[in-house]
């Protein structure tokens, strides 16, 4: 202070500076003990929540790897399932069935779900009551138990109007209906998050509504849309109950195809193996869990990579 060339070091300024310093130090000394205690408590509760989630996930991974590692080899993936010879049994048909069914789900759910979201957000006049009704129904559908969709599939897809029979395509359709609300809701949120100024800017340049949506709104909404698709696909991969109703058999040795023949999926096959008395089958079931986790992880990683490519910052 005394060496400061700008502020003269008179008695009055020194007193003023000392007063200001004292006030600041007092104010900055920190909150009372009670405030600090509540912040610490809050923080520890948050950490507890995070660790519960992480530990559960870690427990599943560790348990499945430890239990199933003995059977984790190429033979398991390439061999057909067998009830008589546990050492020869594999997941080939179930894996192919899963890939077919989930592939069908993606092919159905992406255009229909994104299209429905675009319609609801961009074209539907929200003042009309029937549009509000549609919105409400979609949100409710997201909470319907999956077995209900299984019954729906049995009545309308396997038998009834579509009469596809107990084939993989029927499983795809059923699961697509199950996860469609999730995709629609996520896509709608993503499209809604695109600022209106972007749309106005595009329209003011003489773009049609469709051009604006296709070239500006949808690319900007891609990260959110892809998140919704990730969630939908992960759920579809792991569903067993509705598929049991639409014909996923627990045992087939023939490679599946979309429109004819029996099919199975990984979760259903795992369910079959885990019910068998022999201990080797249980190990095999856990190995199947690892394979399923790996499949979901691979699909999610691809979608996350896609999402990062579209990531924008406002």
């Amino acid at each position, binding site marked *: 202070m005394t060496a400061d060339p700008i502020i003269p070091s008179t008695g009055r300024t020194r007193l003023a500076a000392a007063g200001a310093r004292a006030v600041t130090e007092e104010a900055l000394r920190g909150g009372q003990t009670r405030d600090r205690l509540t912040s610490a408590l809050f923080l520890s509760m948050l950490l507890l929540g995070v660790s519960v989630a992480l530990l559960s996930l870690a427990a599943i991974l560790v348990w499945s790897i430890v239990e199933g590692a003995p059977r984790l080899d190429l033979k398991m993936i390439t061999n057909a399932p067998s009830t008589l010879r546990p050492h020869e049994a594999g997941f080939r048909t179930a894996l192919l069935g899963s890939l077919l069914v989930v592939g069908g789900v993606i092919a159905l759910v992406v255009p229909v779900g994104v299209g429905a979201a675009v319609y609801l957000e961009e074209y539907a006049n929200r003042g009309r009551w029937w549009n509000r009704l549609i919105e409400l129904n979609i949100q409710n559908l997201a909470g319907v138990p999956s077995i209900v969709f299984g019954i729906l599939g049995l009545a309308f897809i396997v038998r009834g109007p579509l009469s596809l029979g107990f084939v993989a395509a029927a499983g795809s359709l059923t699961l697509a209906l199950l996860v469609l609300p999730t995709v629609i809701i996520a896509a709608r949120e993503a499209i809604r998050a695109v600022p209106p100024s*972007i749309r106005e*800017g595009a329209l*003011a*340049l*003489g*773009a049609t509504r469709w051009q604006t949506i296709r*070239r500006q709104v949808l690319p900007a909404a891609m990260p959110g849309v892809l998140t919704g698709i990730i969630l939908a696909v992960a759920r579809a991969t792991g569903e067993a109950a509705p598929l049991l109703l639409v014909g996923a058999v627990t045992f087939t040795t023939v490679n599946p195809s979309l429109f004819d023949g029996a099919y199975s999926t990984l979760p259903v096959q795992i369910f079959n193996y885990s019910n068998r008395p022999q201990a080797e089958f249980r190990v095999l079931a856990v190995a199947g869990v690892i394979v399923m986790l790996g499949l979901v992880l691979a699909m999610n990683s691809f979608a996350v990579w896609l999402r990062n490519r579209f990531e924008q910052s*406002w």
Partner: protein
Amino acid sequence: MNVELRERVGSAEHESQRGVALRLMSDTQSPDRAPDEREAVFDLAGVSCYYGSFRAVKDVTLDIGRNSITAIIGPSGTGKSTLLRAFNRMNDLIPTARLEGTIRYHGIDLYGRSVDAVEVRRRIGMVFQKPNPFPKSIYENVAFGPRVGGMKGNLDEIVEGSLRRAALWDEVKDKLKTSGLALSGGQQQRLCIARAIAVSPDVILMDEPCSALDPVATLRIEQLMMELKENYTIIIVTHNMQQAARVSEETVFLTMDEDRAGYLVERGPTAQIFTNPVNRLTEDYVSGRFG
């Protein structure tokens, strides 16, 4: 700009509409317009803009001349932006908005049955208050308009020409592929102007283009406007009266009536509006007594 105060004797007119001196066109025109047009670019007759049952703008009648800068001034909430957006049918985007009266653009009723709003917007562009570049590269921003409009020609040349005319080329020529959002506010606004120019419009509407910018950027955009008026007709809404006085040749003054509808009080050459307005309300506003 100094405003001379004068004692007014007698009552001012409530609505003083001035006849417009039609500007005869200059030689600088883009080649795809008919060469011999002498009428005003816009001709408004009894235009009222409604949002549902609320009337935002009441009975506006005026003309806009070619290759000029017209400023619309007035206090907040008087429907200036609503009126501006009516010129390129941007109000159509609001479901409850509707228009009464006629707006003629080169003699054609803009809101006629056979008129496509998309075609209108290709000829009447708009720059918004807050710069809104697309979250894409600078090149893609400028190229968007020509692409969706199906314009023929070398896209690189169109982009470069637009950026040059918007006085932005030198600053961005070696980073055309970087994001438009990484530019400063003033640069973003010039990018939006370049984007609007790229579709070769006839008219550029500007809704308070400089209100989100600092004084230096504002000055650059005003200089840009003076250059642009050689080739385009510009209508600008502004709160900044000094800006209106600096750049515009014609000024339109709107204010709010008791029913909260904006109406046209006075219009005329800028110099006259600011130094010798006819209407008392105009004089009060430009001399800062209210608004």
